[in-house]
């Protein structure tokens, strides 16, 4: 009866239009007495690139493994591409590059790809396999045994494996940990290409710069909990403008304060712009300051980096705490 209900519910959910690529709610996991993941909920929309950030031991990899059914959650629910996570079919169109990337050393690179194509139940011609390997910088190595590959080459192979079978969701756990700067740039290009094709990507990376460049949204985990999440604009929404001015009088200062929160003094001021700034605040401010007889030497737009924001959140200094 219960199984029937579950099946009926799964059917109902499967028929809903454009369910998110990932939906998880209230995920919890304990290892012995230590709580690794606590009440984690987030969503990755179709075609969306979401970055998972957080310090070591924040529970990022545990969350990813729970999404993919590799680790049993103590509580919480997962839906992948509209199917319940406990159903293996939910992973039919999911590609995964694990943090610990190891592939059968006794197989060749082409055989590893062919194996994953069979497991993902998609046909893959030999030439297609070679093309995939070429795309990740492993051209000419298709017939070589994986056992002889360097770590970087194995990670590249892992990326090719994750892309087997035209996935609709790709989960990349530290995809550049063993790669040189060129490799990192290539991974970034791969992620951007996936984004352009409308493939959802969940990216766990320590390289905040990479995340900032490719992700639409970020989920920040700390001590197993979601510390903050939102679009980059929401998280980094604090636009600032630094001004070098002379001849500032009381009226000019009042005008500055009208534009936003002002810090500094003398001839250097920093104005924090409102979140709903439509781009007209700065030109209006400059025009008014000039009209008030102020000499404007420099106007420098500034934006806090994701790294600063992340550190701020993790050190408990996040004033506005976007959630």
């Amino acid at each position, binding site marked *: 009866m219960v199984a029937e209900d579950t099946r009926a519910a799964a059917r109902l959910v499967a028929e809903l239009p454009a369910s998110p690529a990932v939906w998880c709610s209230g995920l919890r996991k304990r290892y012995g007495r230590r709580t690794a993941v606590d009440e984690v909920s987030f969503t990755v929309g179709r075609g969306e690139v979401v970055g998972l950030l957080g310090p070591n031991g924040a529970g990022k990899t545990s969350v990813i493994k729970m999404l993919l*059914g590799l680790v049993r959650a103590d509580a919480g629910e997962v839906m992948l591409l509209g199917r319940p996570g406990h159903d*293996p079919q939910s992973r039919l169109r999911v590609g995964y590059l694990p943090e*610990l990337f190891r592939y059968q050393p006794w197989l060749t690179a082409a055989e590893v790809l062919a194996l994953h194509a069979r*497991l993902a139940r998609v046909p893959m011609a030999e030439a297609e396999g070679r093309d995939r390997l070429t795309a990740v910088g492993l051209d000419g190595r298709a017939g070589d045994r994986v056992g002889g590959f360097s770590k970087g080459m194995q990670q590249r192979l892992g990326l090719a494996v994750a892309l087997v079978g035209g996935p609709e969701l790709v989960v990349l756990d530290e995809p550049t940990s063993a790669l040189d700067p060129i490799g990192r740039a290539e991974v970034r290009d791969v992620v951007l290409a996936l984004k352009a094709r409308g493939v959802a990507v969940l990216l766990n990376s320590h390289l905040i710069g990479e995340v900032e460049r490719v992700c639409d949204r970020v989920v920040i985990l700390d001590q197993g909990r979601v510390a903050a999440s939102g679009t980059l604009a929401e998280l980094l929404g604090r636009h600032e403008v630094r001004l070098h001015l002379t001849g500032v009088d009381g009226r000019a200062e009042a005008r500055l304060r009208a534009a936003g929160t002002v810090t500094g003094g003398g001839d250097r001021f920093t104005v924090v712009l409102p979140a709903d700034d439509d781009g007209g605040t700065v030109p209006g401010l400059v025009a008014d300051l000039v009209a008030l007889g102020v000499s404007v030497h420099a106007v420098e737009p500034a934006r806090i980096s994701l790294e600063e924001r992340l550190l701020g959140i993790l050190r408990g200094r996040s004033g506005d705490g976007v959630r």
Partner: protein
Amino acid sequence: MSVLIAAGLTLREAARRRVVWALAVLTVALLTLSGWGFSRLAGLDTEFGDLTSGQARMVASQLLNLVMFGLSLIAALGTAFLAGPTLAGDIESGMALSMLARPVRRSAVLLGKWLGLVAFGSGYVAVAGLAQFLVVRWAVGYWPPDPAAGLALLAGQTVVLLTLALLLSSVISPMASGVVAVGLFGATWVAGVVGGVGQALGNEGVERVGTVSRVLLPTDGLWRGAMHAFQDPSVLSAFDVAAEGFPFLSEAPLTVAYLLWAAVWVAMVWGLTALVFNRRDI
């Protein structure tokens, strides 16, 4: 589908990891040595004079059991050490991560690995056992009374041991699982011998050691059934009571009940492995 993929992968691993070659070298060595030994048997000059052909058959029959025990040991060691790394090793190294994140059921992967190992172990027993029979026939003209049933029971023994090794490898480290499986296999054999001695001496308590161990791990029981199929029926009457305590003679064929128990044992242990593997965090 994923069952067949996993089975094929397991067989390919056995071939590529040179397990096949190691087994082949060991087997050829054993066959050559036994061929040489058996060929000396035909014209053996003992203190009782030349062996008659009947006596030679009797000796050959026991020696065949001894050599087959060597073969079963190679098969047991080979499959146990192959079964060990197959689950625990895959999980430890991280190889299981990318495989199990595919749309596959863990029980299907387990079944595939098990079937691959069963095919490998049974194939080895069939080929090596048959080669041994041919060597003995060439040397002394002896052919076991029921070779097919004997080899099937020997394959059954291999299946029991690899199923145990799979269960162990789902809970302990790969190397430990191989060592423990082979250790238990040896201990059961010794317990079987002890039980035989108890039977010969008419000591029920000691005899029970063998019976209980044969129920707990059916490797020794199946091995004794296999021996019975290999040995000349006339041997038992010649040995009479002494046969009971001799480790390379078996006095009775296996009962259907015992064979059923062995099948149930394999199914239970497999089910337990599937349960443990399903719940395990990768």
